């Protein structure tokens, strides 16, 4: 090629001449190489698609096993299965969330937090992700961080699954604030809680308990908690 390259044509440039044969050959071979690359690309893509399908199937299988193990209370088996589900299908948010939940329940807060923070990068306002992060921060005694995550959870959007109801998050937040003697904030949250309590005795009992606890810690303006009332047929309360 180099020898050919060095032979400058001395003919008039306007006169069409046959192309140097060696260059022609090299360009032809390059075109063949390109065609081979295209064929290799197509083949690799098909294998990748098959591999991806396999990974998704494996992920679903391990996730189902993890759910079953979690239901029967076998925490270690559930964790191992969720880990395999995440390893098989690294793009599935529900699997990662299940793993984070399992890790947090087993006390592996560090790893659970890393996974949740990564999920939060993608879904910053997801209710469950923020709720789980709030609980981890609360357990670690990081007051500001926990409060921030609780607030994001309270006013977030459900993007990853079935999040806990808002009043449950609020009850937990009030308890957390009382644990850390932040009585003013607890009072505010309790007032907000009253407005969103569902008409169930259990919810009212929890709210009453929190109110009593707050009053023990500091006499506060009375908070009127309406008693549960039966709903009217049109869905509204009388």
């Amino acid at each position, binding site marked *: 090629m180099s020898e050919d*390259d060095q032979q400058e044509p001395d003919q008039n440039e306007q006169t069409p001449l046959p192309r*140097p044969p060696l260059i022609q050959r090299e360009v032809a071979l*390059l075109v063949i190489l390109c065609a081979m690359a295209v064929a*290799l690309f197509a083949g690799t893509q098909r294998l*990748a698609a098959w*591999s991806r399908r396999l990974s998704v199937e494996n992920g679903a299988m391990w996730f189902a096993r993890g759910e079953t193990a979690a239901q029967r209370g076998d925490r270690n088996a559930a964790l191992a299965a969720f880990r395999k589900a995440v390893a098989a299908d690294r793009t599935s948010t529900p699997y990662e969330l299940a793993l984070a939940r399992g890790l947090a329940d087993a006390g592996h807060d560090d790893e659970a937090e890393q996974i949740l923070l990564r999920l939060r990068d993608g879904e910053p306002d997801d209710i469950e992700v923020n709720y789980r992060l709030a609980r981890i921060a609360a357990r670690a005694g990081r007051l500001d961080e926990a409060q921030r995550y609780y607030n994001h959870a309270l006013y977030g959007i459900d993007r990853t699954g079935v999040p806990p109801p808002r009043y449950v998050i609020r009850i937990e937040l009030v308890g957390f604030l009382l644990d850390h003697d932040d009585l003013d904030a607890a009072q505010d949250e309790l007032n907000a809680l009253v407005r969103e309590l569902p008409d169930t005795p259990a919810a009212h009992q929890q709210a009453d308990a929190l109110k009593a606890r707050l009053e023990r810690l500091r006499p506060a303006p009375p908070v009127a908690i309406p008693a549960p009332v039966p709903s009217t047929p049109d869905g509204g309360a009388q």
Partner: protein
Amino acid sequence: MKRLLTPSAWRVRENQLFLALTVVIGIIAGLGAVLFALSIEAARHFIVGTDAPWWRVALAPCLASVVSGILLSRFFPDARGSGIPQTKVAFHAQDGVMHPRVALGKFLTAVPVIGAGHSMGREGPSVQIGAAAASWAGQWLRLPRERLRDLIPVGASAALAAAFNTPVAAVLFSLEEIIADMNAPLIGSTVVAAVSAVVVERAILGNEPLFHVPQYRLMHPGELLAYVALGVIGGIASVAFCKGLLGARAAFQRMPAKSRMWQPAIGGLMIGAILLVTPEVAGVGYEHVDQALNGGLLLRVAVLLCVMKMIATIVSYASGNAGGIFAPTLYFGAMLGGAVGLIARQLAPFPVAAPGAYALVGMGALFAGIIRAPMTSVFMIFEITQDYQILVPLMVANMLSFVISQRYQPDPIYHALLAQDGVSLSPHDATALHVEG
């Protein structure tokens, strides 16, 4: 239009052709690396499956090694081991000539072995496959010798970029390890090839990163002491691994020549026994590296996995199987770093970063100590994290590990492996190559 028909317009200059060839080779080598990785996954699925009984886990490495050993002895003797030493020899001593059979042999022998659970990496073989494909393309196009030689690092960097998804580190690896000259004029070609390879790799596999890495924070200046400790321990571990690997390999080489075909199977039997105790060390093992990076390991588990992975890798490699030490190096680096991070958390009187951050730095430290490519290791971890804050602790740990490893194991591992095969490649002047016998 008339101008297009003139000879000067049609004339394709050598440099332009080489540039085009570089792009095509980048794509082919990148596809080769992706195909290789996917084939290992497929082999793993077919050989071991998702929920294999214990006897299958124990026997699979041996059976795969029997097949691989026959292929290696009868047809593909150049496909043993990592592939990076062979690529260096092709560049420095053989004018870039590699037989296309090498790429095929590496593929056929490494895929079942790694898929069956041998503790070996896919990056080294990918580099050899990429370089062999590049050399074959150059030979087919009848390129002059100096151009053919230039294609070796081009193919190597493309394959590594696609295999590890770190194009900058791949280019640096080619310059630092394959060419052994950071000022090599080939940097342009290697960059073009690496970028082409990464583009096709991402087109096929998507943008999902190889590892999920934690956000890095230096919590306290005193934490640098913990990284100093990690660098020192990393250096010692690097020396231990290199000496262990070379010693075990020498022991296998002292066995009768006629046993060479069955040596990989002996290694396979030993790996089967190891996998019964610690199945986590099987194969490439990046899912466990990911777990270490996210702080998901207990101290005793991290230490156990680090030690067992070292032993398993030594056995797999020394017995003559086809596969690399690049990924295992990162594996035990992550475990060692994670262990140091967990100890620092327990002992340090100041706040320290999450163990995952130490695992990351540990990966770099072991890479610098074992592979002896400190610049590549710094940029590789930086490329994985994309975080400037990690650079200072990373450089501290890397340099300490590198210096300690260099002091007690003067020959870099790839040079020492070549020396065991009777090939001497001077570490001071890579071009001064002397082949014995």
